[in-house]
């Protein structure tokens, strides 16, 4: 059976990559109405952190071949 932690890893990895990408895009194309504390570029480091945690979970709990 595939571990639930593997699915959690996938969810965090995918979300992290998407958020990180959105943050990078905003870095080069700043929005007209930026959110408060835009200068901290939270999507980049938060998305990156989620992606790293997700990748660790994916590797640690990946399904083993029969």
């Amino acid at each position, binding site marked *: 059976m595939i571990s639930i932690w593997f699915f959690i890893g996938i969810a965090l990895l995918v979300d992290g990559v998407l958020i990180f990408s*959105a943050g990078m895009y905003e870095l080069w194309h700043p929005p007209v109405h930026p*959110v408060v504390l835009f200068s901290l570029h939270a999507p980049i480091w938060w998305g990156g952190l989620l992606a790293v945690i997700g990748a660790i979970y994916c590797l640690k709990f990946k399904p083993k071949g029969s």
Partner: protein
Amino acid sequence: MAGRDMTAWVAGLSFLSANLGALELMGWAGSAYQYGILATHWYWIGAIPAMLFLALVMMPFYYISKTHSVPGYLKLRFGEPARAVSAVSFGFMTVLMSGVNMFAMAKVLQIVLGWDINVSIWLSAGTVAVYVALGGLRSAIFNEVLQFFLIWAGVLLIPILGLHEAGGWSNLKIQIAHRTSEQYVHLWSGLGSFTGNPMGIHWTGIVFGLAAVISMGYWTTDFLVVQRILAAKDIRSAEMAPIIGAGFKMMVPFIVILPGLLGLAVLPMKLVPESVATVTGAHSYNDVLPLMLARYCGPGLLGLGITALIAGFMSGMAGNVTAFTTVWTYDIYRPLINSKGTDHHYVNMGRWTTVIGVLISVGTAYLVMQFASIMDYVQALFSFFIAPLFGTVVLGMLWKRATGPGGFWGLLLGTASSISMWAWVKVDPSALRYVAMSPHAKALAQDMYQALWSFLVCVIVTVVVSLVTKPKTDSELNGLVYGLTAVPSIGNVPIYQKPHFWAGVVVVIFFALNVYFW
């Protein structure tokens, strides 16, 4: 129903996240804006002692007990009449609770996407009907653990960025005191009198109404949460699961209460009660979490935050609609209305009940708009249904002299007294001085005292009626009463694997947090 194969961690996180829907996220953020840090009591003294009590005292009993649902237990312990009363009140509670989740989800769609609230409510209803049709409890458990991580990933950024904007906890307290009053940031120091805190409550309401009655009742008898633990693979995992849940529960205020407090300090507009907002079009207390999300999060992060919120609402709605379907079909319809139907008939009845449950929930979603905030509504429901039920269940489990007629009349009159007190204050607001012991009490304070009085009514009636009626024999009560049931032991394990050790760790952290935020 799920089998017993969950590890302590999965069961514990599922147990916690079964209670991390709209109620927790948007409701308590709104209540933190409305009542300040006092809302944290519902996470600490209003949860931790009860969760540890469940783990160390109730869980071993539940795990080997003859039944796995409260109506089922009441039938074996007190007979059919008490079971019927609890089934009807539980049915009411589930659809009323489903409605509040639906309302909260519609609110998020309205704030973030700008959709009309009516369209949003019906869209939420359609989505949950499909969701319930596709999954059972097992999928719900896995979904909840998944959702738990999404919620933390999506919402954790608000307190981090909010504290940065406010300049740290000390500066946040100064700003809140400046814009409201200093009592918004103290947990206990304002509870010596009814007028010294924003909720208009005395410490007796928090300790006896919340911690001893509502919280104990919710965490030990609400099988929407308890059944998650019963899916644990062995008795040690079943005891550890609520303790793991308690450890995380103490951290939840960081993502739920803190955004509400930050809203008090940094939001430019003043939020108002929902009942006022529906008339004026202003933002209500309930909007504080989505407003804070939109304040700090650009498209990517906002998407994750909204997904996390909607996942929370969906599981809250689905859990309640599924419970309503089960209670109506197997606890009300089959025993009381049609006991001769085929299995196919009951399955069809269950399907139709799901649709009807969703439609009733739509109606109750509109009912929430009449209250100042989501939590004022939810805690009123708890005082109606959970407080008296706890009295009946705890007497049934711990006192072998309690009889069937005692359980029935105690539960019926306890529930009736709570609803009557609420109606009395609704009709004559000056009655608040008797029900909540102070004319200054806010809705949440009234709910706590209502719960305490209805619990006492239930216990007194049960004891008096039991003493004049014939009790069951000891052999009939085996597996139903604590002292007459052989409770299993977890065996010989190292100290770091013992539930009591980890419960001790949780207690130390619990006291430290309360003293720090005194």
